[in-house]
């Protein structure tokens, strides 16, 4: 018997509302198949399953709001029959979101990502002090025994919070509620990031003539819908640069860095109703630019339609944000925990440029790196940015 549990679709997800089952009892499912659509505070997400089997029982009803980790369905493994399987006790339905708009208390969470049974470990003194200081204890990472949040953690968080003490006011309108909810989720994740992750920032002007020229050539003769965007080149360049700098790619969890084996790059996508999400394009380093372009277009479309897959939400190993369209020169991002780096690109603008001892005009984009000092140092970060710059000088190799 396999238990299918509501996965965590991001560091800031505590619970989800089941919108729709995509399977029924008796259906066979394959690894990676979308089995349900779940509304997180951020988006309606297609939830995939990571095992094979036959759906036995669905334990969660549409519109039910359930904590992460709740068993949503049971499946029969190959060779297991319905007769031999025991019916699971039905999980007590969580109160309907409409009936109880506010969740009664914090949900189980441990170190931000792992799920443990029971309450998150926060020392009584830390909890009390957090209240006194107005620190949201759920956003504070723990450094005590078994990852417990200690007094020192709270004091550190409070000191960090003084830098940006913005808080979103609660709004009553339903649509605004959703936006506010997302705002809060972003606030929680970004707040945690800034308190927990010692960021360092580097930037490098990247000459873009070759890339621009190569792109113009490559797009020649292509229908508009098939044209490549500079963003795709940048994504691929990041992925290739990461191969030599694994310390930029992965997760910092339970006090240790876990490097990722592939570059699943989270692409920051702003949403029309406000807010942003950064779902992943998987295995960017292994894909052709054409494939990446298709993936990116599809991802943006689905992100704005609210139908992302769970793996896209939870898998990014690094995030790339491009605010060039908005016309800013450079962007210094906030790392999305538990990731350890974020690469930003500003607009491509013409600048005076010395090349071969001659002053000329060069289209230049500022590439920036925000990285986690617990995992890497400025020296390696600088080398990474240099490698990224060099990748973009050879667009034909991307």
């Amino acid at each position, binding site marked *: 018997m396999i238990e299918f549990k509501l996965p965590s679709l991001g560091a800031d997800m505590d619970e989800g509302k089941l919108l729709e089952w995509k399977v029924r009892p008796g259906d066979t499912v394959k690894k990676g198949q979308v089995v349900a659509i779940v509304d997180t505070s951020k988006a309606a997400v297609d939830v995939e399953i990571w095992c094979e089997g036959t759906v036995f029982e669905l334990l969660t009803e549409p519109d039910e709001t359930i904590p992460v980790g709740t068993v949503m369905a049971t499946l029969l493994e190959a060779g297991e029959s319905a007769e031999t399987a025991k019916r699971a006790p039905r999980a007590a339905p969580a109160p309907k979101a409409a009936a109880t708009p506010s969740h009664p208390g914090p949900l189980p969470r441990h170190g931000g990502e792992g799920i443990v049974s029971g309450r998150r470990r926060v*020392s*009584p*003194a*830390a*909890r*009390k002090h957090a209240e006194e200081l107005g620190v949201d204890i759920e956003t504070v990472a723990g*450094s*005590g*025994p078994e990852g*417990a949040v*200690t*007094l020192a953690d709270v004091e550190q968080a409070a000191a960090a919070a003084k830098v940006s003490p913005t808080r979103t006011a609660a709004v009553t309108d339903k649509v605004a509620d959703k936006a506010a909810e997302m705002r809060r989720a972003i606030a929680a994740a970004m707040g945690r990031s800034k308190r927990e992750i010692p960021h360092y920032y580097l930037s490098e002007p990247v000459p873009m003539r070759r890339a621009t020229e190569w792109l113009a050539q490559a797009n020649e003769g292509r229908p508009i819908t098939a044209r490549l965007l500079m963003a795709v080149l940048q994504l691929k360049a990041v992925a290739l640069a990461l191969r030599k700098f694994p310390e930029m790619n992965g997760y910092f969890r339970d006090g240790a860095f876990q490097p990722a084996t592939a570059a699943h790059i989270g692409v920051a996508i702003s949403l029309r109703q406000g807010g942003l999400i950064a779902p992943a394009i998987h295995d960017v380093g292994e894909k052709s630019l054409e494939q990446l372009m298709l993936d990116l277009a599809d991802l943006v479309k689905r992100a704005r339609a609210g139908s992302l897959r769970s793996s896209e939400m939870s898998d990014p190993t690094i995030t790339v944000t491009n605010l060039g369209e908005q016309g800013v020169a450079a962007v210094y991002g906030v790392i999305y925990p538990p990731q350890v780096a974020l690469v930003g690109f500003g607009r491509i603008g013409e600048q005076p440029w010395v090349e071969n001892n001659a002053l000329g005009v060069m289209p230049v984009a500022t590439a920036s790196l925000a990285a986690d000092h617990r995992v890497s140092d400025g020296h390696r970060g600088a080398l990474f940015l240099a490698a990224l710059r060099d990748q973009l000088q050879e667009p034909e190799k991307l």
Partner: protein
Amino acid sequence: MKMTYREAIRQAMFDALAADPRVFLMGEDVGRYGGSYACSKGFLEEFGAERIRDTPLSELGFVGAGIGAALGGLRPIVEVMTVNFSLLALDQIVNTAAALRHMSGGQFSVPLVLRMATGAGRQLAAQHSHSLENWYAHIPGIRVLAPATIGDARGMLAPALADPDPVVIFEHAQLYNLEGALPDDWRCDIATAAVRREGTDVSLITYGGSLPKVFAAAEQLAAEGIDAEVIDLRVLRPLDTETIAASLRKTHKAVVVDEGWKSGSLAAEVMARLVEECFYDLDAPPARVCSEEVPIPYARHMEEAALPQVPKIVSAVKQVIGK
């Protein structure tokens, strides 16, 4: 002035006997033998057989007689050789000494001082190694003291004799040979716990024979950058919760060290109070280092393994601190 714990106990008794004719010492081998731990050596010659009274091996009888003598106007110091044998007198201590004032509606107080050795560490095996301080600390109506320093050994007896109610004094057998400086002002109260070492990172709470071990652990921790505060409970009943709480409000972390067995121990009582009184000051679950749940074995290595030791204390502290 340097002296041993034994000498401090002896001087305290000598003074008390010399100062008040109502005071007398009674127990097994306190007279001619000089005390099984030699705490009353020379007393028989000094004060005579009426006041230095050798008893038969009748713990129930002579402890009860001590209670009666106290009721009758004397100030007896009754020595029970060890806490292990005091179990034979438990009825008199618990059902009579502790309860009499209350049962009589406040008419009869029992100004008795009961001294006994306690604790393990000398390969005396299960029947001579108990640490049952906690059993007595459970009983309302008596006061329970655990002098752990030269000063307290010297100073606690006088206020104990002045107390109108029964006082039980536990002298850890491992402490008798402890040598140290007698503080100039060794006069002390029998109501409060003492901060023996100031620190900021963790409160080590202990009493009696475990105090030297806790000091050693604190030194070791200091070398590793952990600044431990050491609380000597001194008075096991009534417990001075305020001193413990004040320390906790500073350190937010606690390790209780108690030679009693963990289950139902005094350490358990201290932990319970920490949680009741200092819950919102706790920054980590408090920990205990107690004796293992086994009758104390004879073989040296096994006995050592059964008792709280410095490395166990150090490691418990590190666990609590998260290092």
